[in-house]
């Protein structure tokens, strides 16, 4: 075991898979000699060579096409989009092409592609760097969307993502890259995609969440405990497909639920999760399922992040509404 930050755990996962499978290729803008703008690919080109880890021209759409073409030749591309706000440039390659490859060819071709990309607020980035666009991705049949919140999860989920034979979008929250360390096994291990984890057990209220909001929810749960409330926090880890079983089992136990996301209220995954709970566990509900989400404006100018981004206080406030309904 070693103490790792999330970014180190990600590098470790990439190294593990580059060693395990000669078909794994890591590429994107500045991921080679530079080691990535966040050092996620630090040292990998040196260890595995330019054939395996390489820079590309500055064109996200081209990078997506490159990944699809390499996959058609039997490679297992792990491509990077420098910031997920730039995904609009490559929406066709992801949603219009690789997501559909297996289906449109009747299983003849596949896209075992992992798209790594940082996102998330709280670190005062310039425009179009921090937007939460996972909701767009989750609406496209054919892809899986993974969002880890801890170093341990990041490594196991990234190894699983790379090994998956269908396209996986692996979103890395920038605020979580180096915010804390955790024990991470040095050997390889996997965490199944599509499986949530109960990060804290409780009996009065279920919080379903993902990304940086996992930590805000855990902090809120601690505060609420001081007031005698027992809150269960579910970290989805994969937002598509959803781990419905874990969510419903928890809601049936607690009778109250809320969903916490960093994305705007009209975006993200919250609405979908609430619909699933309503369809499957309405008879268990003591109160409506409420949402914590950002306002429905464009992502804030960096100085306005603190007043705009949801945080643990918003979680506490909404939790009380649900608990006191």
């Amino acid at each position, binding site marked *: 075991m070693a103490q790792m930050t999330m970014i180190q755990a990600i590098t470790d996962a990439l190294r593990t898979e580059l060693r395990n499978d000669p078909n794994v290729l890591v590429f994107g803008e500045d991921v080679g000699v530079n080691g990535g703008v966040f050092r996620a690919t630090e040292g990998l080109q040196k260890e595995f060579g330019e054939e395996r880890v390489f820079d590309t021209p500055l064109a996200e*759409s081209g990078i997506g*096409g490159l*990944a699809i*073409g*390499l996959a058609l030749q039997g490679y297992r591309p792990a491509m990077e989009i420098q910031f997920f706000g730039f995904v609009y440039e490559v929406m*066709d390659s992801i949603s219009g092409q690789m997501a559909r490859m297996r*289906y*449109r*060819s009747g299983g003849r071709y*596949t896209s075992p592609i992992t798209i790594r990309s940082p996102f998330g607020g709280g670190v005062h980035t310039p425009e179009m760097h921090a937007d939460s666009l996972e909701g767009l991705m989750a609406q496209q049949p054919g892809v899986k969307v993974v969002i880890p919140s801890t170093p341990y999860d990041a490594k196991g989920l990234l190894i699983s993502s790379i090994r998956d034979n269908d396209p996986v979008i692996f979103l890395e929250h920038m605020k979580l890259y180096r915010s804390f360390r955790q024990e991470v096994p040095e050997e390889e291990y996997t965490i199944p995609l599509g499986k949530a984890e109960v990060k804290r057990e409780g009996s009065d209220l279920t919080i379903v969440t993902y990304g940086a909001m996992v930590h805000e929810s855990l902090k809120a749960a601690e505060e609420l405990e001081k007031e005698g409330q027992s809150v269960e926090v579910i970290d989805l880890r994969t937002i598509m497909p959803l781990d419905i079983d874990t969510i419903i089992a928890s809601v049936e136990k607690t009778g109250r639920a809320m969903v916490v996301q960093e994305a705007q209220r009209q975006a993200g995954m919250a609405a979908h999760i609430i619909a699933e709970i309503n369809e499957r566990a309405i008879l268990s509900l003591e109160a409506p399922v409420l949402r914590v989400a950002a306002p429905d404006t464009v992502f804030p100018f960096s100085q306005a992040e603190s007043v705009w981004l949801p945080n643990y206080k918003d979680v506490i406030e909404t939790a009380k509404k649900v608990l006191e309904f």
Partner: protein
Amino acid sequence: MASKSKKTVADAVKQLEKVQDQYETLQILNEEGEVINEAAMPELSDERLQELMKRMVYTRILDQRSISLNRQGRLGFYAPTAGQEASQLGSQFALEKEDFILPGYRDVPQLIWHGLPLHQAFLFSRGHFKGNQIPEGVNVISPQIIIGAQYIQAAGVALGMKKRGAKSVAITYTGDGGASQGDFYEGINFAGAFKAPAIFIVQNNRFAISTPVEKQSAAKTIAQKAVAAGIPGVQVDGMDPLAVYAAVSDARERAVNGEGPTLIETLTYRYGPHTMAGDDPTRYRTTDLDNEWEKKDPLVRFRKFLEKKGLWNEEMENEVIETAKEDIKEAIKKADDTPKQKVTDLMEIMYEEMPNHLQEQYEIYKEKESK
């Protein structure tokens, strides 16, 4: 100093003219089937020349029958190909089996001659997933509907071949309108930066639906767009099968020798509408223009060329026509006999392992389908 005469900066207009002048049209056969460029003449045996003619005649019949079957409602989406036989088949004829084709939506003939069974091409037209289940060993992917996407993917396929050390190429096709897309530029630029073995073909048939090529770009040729990627560009007479074959052979040789990609513009024409989905070319094309291009018919000039060499006659042509008609009849029957698609079929081809939500829906549809 103000008094000093202004130093002449680069003459931008002259530079443009110089660039455009580099792209002369490569032609080997004129409209009368006479060889006008002996030096560029590709080495093809008599049998190979006859085979190329057979394929062109066959494909012309396939187009005529496809239009007719579409009108009878026995085919669905269909983009006519008549007029483009030299461009489509002359280029495919220069390929090896190992080469990978990434076609646009009009490029079904290339797939067929690369090994896609005819009945599957018809299933593609009708909208059946079995049409896209390309047989193992046939290196093609189904026709791309998103104009430009095949270009960036071709750069990736070509890079994959280079990494494997394969002596093969990725070849892809778009039209004149497609050369305005971002993915067109990114595709040729990526292939150039990686020195990947790709052949990019632009079939310039002068119209993107109703929009003439002059409204796509102020560039005098599409071939010169290769300059932006720093790769060789060639403009060929796309109604001349030998010129197209020669240009693609040449590009293929450069590619497998590790010299990178080539952009080839073929000047061609579609005699029919854009697609069979209600497009009416008389709204935007003049009869004069149609007549002018009909004189350039690739079949006419290649027929004359072969007849003069004693390699072709009416009997041979009729035999090809009959074979084509028989094959088409059989293929349509085979397409008819293909089982109808079920929702559960569509679910099964989404992922390697069905996620829970889809599994749940699968059970529901399986129940519906059992009734």
